């Protein structure tokens, strides 16, 4: 049994999320099947009564007393002693510092943060070494993303027998991105704590409202434009079999395929667009003319051709075609 623990609610204090925002965020996470969440003291206080069905892990400072914060599943503390319900956070910046883990060999719960450069080495051997140093401890790996490999490290940890990882939505806080780890495990190991993942879109929208920052359009799994297709070859493939050019159906994460017209479109893209816009089918000659005009316009405007522009070009070609018959 693997477990993805989401740490987003430890990273949002600077944005002062409201109680409503926090409750919604927890609800959407639960909806996609993430039921373990790390929270900050700010979030703990703002939430007041905690929503049901989620195991909360509270991050405390060294001087805090666990008894002042009741109701938590576990508590995170930096280098704190070996106590019941306390997960000891240990920062290991790179593999050269790995030997430090020996000091924690009798701890019950350990969270290892860092290991940004792990992918550059024989990471499978290093995973074995970590498990060997920490004997029977429950290890939560929290790879950091300085070298853009945190998701890869998190996924490989779980595939090598690691049980728990910590990640954050969209990778905020320099973490592995929860949605990437989730979908990678879904694609590779059929990990599916919940079948309905459309909540990913709602999570993204809420995250944007809370932080005031737009998620990049091409962000894996949650970007607005990742299922847009322009290339003629790919559109042709998608028409023949929707599985040809996608890792998973867009609908699975609440999105849909959108066929765009531009420089790289082919005849089938034109046919498909006519169908989508309920336009009359064109002759082969007219499709060729229309395709050429679509390509010319997109190069001229350095962008894709909108539906309105396509309709204008379509009417021009239909008129040209009718005139040809008259002649």
């Amino acid at each position, binding site marked *: 049994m693997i477990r993805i623990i989401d740490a987003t609610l430890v990273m949002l204090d600077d944005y002062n999320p409201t109680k409503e925002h926090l409750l919604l965020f927890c609800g959407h996470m639960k909806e996609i099947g993430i039921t373990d969440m790390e929270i900050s003291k700010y979030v703990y206080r703002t939430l007041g009564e905690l929503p049901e069905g989620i195991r909360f892990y509270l991050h405390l400072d060294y001087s805090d007393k666990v008894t002042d914060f009741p109701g938590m599943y576990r508590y995170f503390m930096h280098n704190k002693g070996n106590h019941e319900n306390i997960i000891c956070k240990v920062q290991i910046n790179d593999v050269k510092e790995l030997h430090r883990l020996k000091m924690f060999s009798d701890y019950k719960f350990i969270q290892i943060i860092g290991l940004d450069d792990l992918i550059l080495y024989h990471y499978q051997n290093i995973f074995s070494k970590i498990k060997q140093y920490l004997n029977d401890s429950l290890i939560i790996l929290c790879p950091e993303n300085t070298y853009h490999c945190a998701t890869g490290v998190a996924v490989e940890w779980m595939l090598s027998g690691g049980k728990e990882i910590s990640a954050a939505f969209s990778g905020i806080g320099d973490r*592995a991105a929860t949605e990437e780890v989730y979908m990678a495990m879904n694609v590779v190991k059929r990990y599916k704590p919940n079948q309905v993942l459309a909540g990913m879109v709602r999570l993204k929208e809420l995250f944007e409202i809370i932080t005031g920052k737009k998620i990049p359009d091409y962000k894996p*799994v949650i970007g607005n434009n990742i299922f847009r297709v322009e290339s003629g070859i790919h559109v042709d493939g998608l028409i023949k079999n929707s599985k040809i050019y996608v890792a998973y159906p867009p609908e699975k994460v609440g999105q849909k395929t959108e066929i765009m017209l531009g420089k790289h479109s082919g005849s089938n893209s034109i046919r498909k667009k006519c169908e989508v816009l309920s336009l009359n089918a064109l002759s082969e000659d007219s499709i060729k003319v229309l395709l050429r005009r679509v390509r010319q316009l997109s190069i001229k405007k350095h962008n894709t051709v909108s539906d309105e522009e396509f309709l204008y070009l379509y009417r021009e070609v239909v008129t040209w075609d009718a005139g040809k018959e008259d002649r």
Partner: protein
Amino acid sequence: MPEKKIVDTTLRDGEQRPGIEFTMADKIKLAKLIDSCGVYEIEAGTSNRELEGEGYYEELRNNVKHAKISLWSRMCKEDIEEAILCKPDIVHIGMPVSYVQIYSKLKKNKTWLHKCICECIDRIRSENIEVVVGFEDASRADEGFLIDTARLIGERGGNTIRIADTVGVLIPSRTESIINQIVTKVGISVEFHGHNDLGMVVANSISACKAGAEYVDCTLLGIGERSGNCHLLEFVRTAGRIFNLGIDKYQVQAAENELNKMICEK
């Protein structure tokens, strides 16, 4: 440190991102900047001269001083003839290898595929042009078929196999395993072409190099279809710690700034 070579595909696969529509002048400008970064090869476009613009490849040759110039072609006789007319240093032939691509997209079989790729290689090699065969959707293909096909290509005079994670489903360990099998069992040069659908393209590209891939495909700003390709600067900053890539990071930054400007000016 072991040496690895960068193939920049901003002007071919990068341009596949909807909304990135370069003019010929844009491509020449970017090619000069990419050349100054120290990449081994620039995959500059396709064999479709109507799309690329008349005289594009000649103009490119006059402006690119160091990198080899390659172009991408479908695995069909007409496109290969067009590719030869463009006089590139290298032709990349796209060869679908997963069953879903062979049977659903091409609607052909493996025997047809082997016959066709041999004909394409023979024709290109007869013009003394290098051949890279791109295994499209290699990540979802049968490994035995990949190895047999790679052997056939090597025997026929193909120079390199490009392992393409076309839909971006690879993870680092699986990438390492596929590349390692081809390198050790076939002994042909291998290139890796990743996509970032699951956020692992840098990790996968590094894993490919560790397993013996000589070439890695990257794009400026990581542009490309869906979630994009391997971001050149991110790859260089990470892989540059254990591999000699011969890339000038400051020039990459300058090229990315220019591309950003082009995208924002639309």
